[in-house]
């Protein structure tokens, strides 16, 4: 059963099948420092350029974490209780990574107008061109999504375009979905409720062939500076937002401040099940995908601070 179908079934049953557990389980799984060593994360802070750390991460069903450590031109593979290992990457400015379902990876190079498929050893297997029907500007691609029916790319956090089939072959005719795919029959769109910064997030489900409807509106006690993640899993939905204060340093050198990441778990009917807060450091690094939904059903996050990064796991 797809996630969307499950959601629909549970919506119809009012979510009664889901037992309420008020708290979320949070654990710090990995701690890494900056550097180019085996168990380190690359970070680059040019004197007149954007600070860059790890751009993205993906987690498989066993809890293996693949960090896109593009500064070090590699995937850093972290396994609980085991030594990390790496997969070397081509010298490209990758911005996102996802698993291909066959032990390999898809990597997004929006600057290079390409999606590259690598095997588990990092050998290039194929590539797709981004620009084409429904996608004028490759640089506007913000993320990669592999669904049951093919490969999608997200445009400007607004909609997704299906560019490849399940085998990774380019599609002659592309199709678009509002938000991100959540199964073959629909998509989920998440966005700030109004012009940023705002205090709320809206989740809207777009079932295929039916009118969209809002699943939830989440309100927060501070401004949502960034919507880091929103997605469905077998038990409902996850939302991760970074809350912050505007203009901490309106004039003068940047100052590191403490901030918060709020993780919210929703039941299938859209009712909030629980939320938790993680410490977050306010850095200028452009880190487009710090949070992801793991194949194990937990929400995973890689948050940076001035010394390195911490991999968090949040589960119901």
């Amino acid at each position: 059963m797809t996630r969307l179908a499950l959601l629909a079934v549970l919506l119809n049953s009012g979510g009664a099948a889901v037992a309420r557990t008020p708290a979320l389980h949070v654990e710090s799984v990995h701690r890494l420092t900056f550097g180019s060593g085996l168990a380190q994360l690359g970070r680059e802070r040019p004197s007149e350029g954007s600070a860059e750390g790890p751009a993205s991460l993906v987690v498989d069903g066993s809890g293996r974490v693949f960090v896109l450590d593009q500064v070090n031109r590699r995937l850093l593979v972290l396994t609980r209780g085991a030594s990390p290992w790496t997969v070397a990457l081509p010298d490209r400015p990758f911005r996102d990574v996802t698993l291909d379902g066959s032990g390999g990876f898809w990597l997004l190079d929006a600057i290079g107008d390409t999606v590259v498929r690598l095997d588990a050893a990092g050998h290039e297997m194929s590539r797709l061109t981004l620009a084409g029907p429904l996608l004028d500007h490759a640089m506007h691609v913000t993320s990669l999504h592999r669904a049951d029916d093919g490969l999608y790319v997200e445009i400007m956090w607004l909609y997704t375009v299906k560019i490849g089939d399940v085998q990774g072959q380019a599609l002659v005719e592309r199709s678009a979905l509002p938000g991100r795919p959540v199964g073959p029959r629909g998509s989920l769109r998440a966005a700030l409720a109004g012009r940023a910064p705002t205090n709320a997030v809206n989740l809207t489900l777009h079932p295929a062939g039916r009118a969209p409807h809002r699943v939830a509106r989440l309100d927060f006690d501070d401004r949502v500076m960034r919507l880091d993640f929103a997605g469905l899993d077998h038990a409902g939905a996850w939302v991760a937002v970074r809350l912050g204060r505007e203009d901490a340093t309106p004039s003068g050198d940047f100052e590191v401040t403490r901030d918060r990441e709020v993780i919210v778990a929703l039941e299938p009917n859209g009712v909030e099940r629980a939320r938790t807060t993680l410490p977050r450091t306010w850095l200028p690094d452009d880190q487009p995908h710090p949070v992801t939904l793991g194949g194990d059903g937990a929400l995973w996050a890689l948050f940076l601070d001035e010394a390195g990064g911490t991999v968090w796991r949040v589960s119901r």
Partner: protein
Amino acid sequence: MRAALLVVLFVVLPATAPAAPEKMTRDQIIAIAKKSVGFSYWWGGSCFNDQGTCKGKCVPNCGGCGCPSCDHQPSSGCSKEYGADCSGLVNKAWQLPGPIAITTCSHGPYTTGSYIGAHAYWSAISTSSSKRGDAMVYHKNGAGHMFVFESFAANGDVVAYECKGCSYGCPHGPRGYSGYSARRRSQLSETVDTDGDGVEDGKDNCDTTDNKTQTDTDKDGKGDACDTDDDNDGVADTKDNCDTTDNKTQVDTDKDGKGDVCDSDDDGDAVADDKDNCPTVANPDQADTDKDGKGNACETDDDGDAVPDASDNCAQLKNADQKDTDKDGKGDACDTDQDGDGVLNEKDNCAESVNADQKNTDGDAQGDVCDDDADGDGVPNDGDNCPTVSDAEVTDLDEDGLGDVCDPDLDGDGIPNAADNCPFVKNADQLDTDGDGRGDDCPLLDVPPADGDDPHLTDTPGDTVTPTGPESPPAEPTPEAGSSEPGASTAEVVPAAEAPVTADTGNSVTAAEPFEPAGAVATSSSSGCAPTPQGAPVWWTLVMLAGLALVARRRATSRS
């Protein structure tokens, strides 16, 4: 060495730096920023070209340390290098400290470390108030970044133009702005007016067409002056018969080329629509029978009698009852001959009753067929035993229902008056012993009795009677027609021709001819009345009068 030179460049301000930069617009800033997209990151550089060629290449000198530990190289086959770093891009886009071509490779004096501080050329603003063309900047310990802000993205990121780094070059797209502060260029003109019509671009509904009035008929945000379909009705202005009024159907009733919705006289009848009682049906006469404000030409019930014209037997005259006496399909209200008798209503003495002969016994305004008192004797027809013969007394000697004045057999003895030798006394045997023409039973009146008999009662044999009858009939009957004497009617007695000669045999009377009036006599066969004797001999008249007197006396006696 190269880095050191650039640092020197960054910190040395031109001696001629003006107090304020030249005015710019947000569009101009974005237009320059767009030129950078796709070019390489060039630490310390800032130049592009319009063609997007020779983008250059950034080559890091070490892994993970970032620029300035990097080199910049021209693209293959290009003699000139293009590219920029982050502050170089902002300097160029903001044209600071002064105007400079995008192709001129000069970074400008300002770095992120400059922009993080205060300056007359820019000011700090809140990030949430950022607008396109503003910039965001961070700086910390000699490192920093900045970009040109374009908009906010759906997830809270910003969409920016930036020269990001050696690996990324100068992209355009969403990115985070955590820890960044916003800056706004000074002398930023919010009011560019390309067409000089006094309305600034962005607010001008025709940026490049002079339209001071900003008229926008269809409210589509595009002024009429530059809108090819002013009224947004799907018909291009050049073909629209009302180009500023929505009229998809293009209805033009009078075919004058001007659609109805904008035509002050839709039907072209020379009566303005606002005064036309049928705006879309030509009716110059404005006829409006029922005065309901809707002209007949466009009304389904002209006379307002609630009967549709199509089924109204008087469409122009109110006649809710639809009365049609003669059933000719033309209602009485509009029928000049309501009863269809061939006499027009205005001349018809019975307009609602058929009477082609216009018979009017009593000569009043109403014909007999519609006159409740046809003979004008004061007795309504219903109670008048001679409705067409004036007889106010309504006497009926033989009480047979026919008034005496119209009863052809007054005494009811079966002998018509004219042949009866005693019309007031029932004497069916007509016994006339002396043969004087007056029955034996007939009373004498005004004749002195010669034999002692009551001359008033009977005519016995041997009585002396001065005949006044047939032997010497008067030349003219009396009274004359047209007499105004009381009790005389012009209708009941008219000049008669020769009276019939009656033979008085004494025992029987035989009329030479049946008695009947000559000329117009107010009788009606339907009345049941017999003709009044006309041209009778004087004696007969006298007898008649005597009889009537006798009857009256008897009635009076009986009443008493």
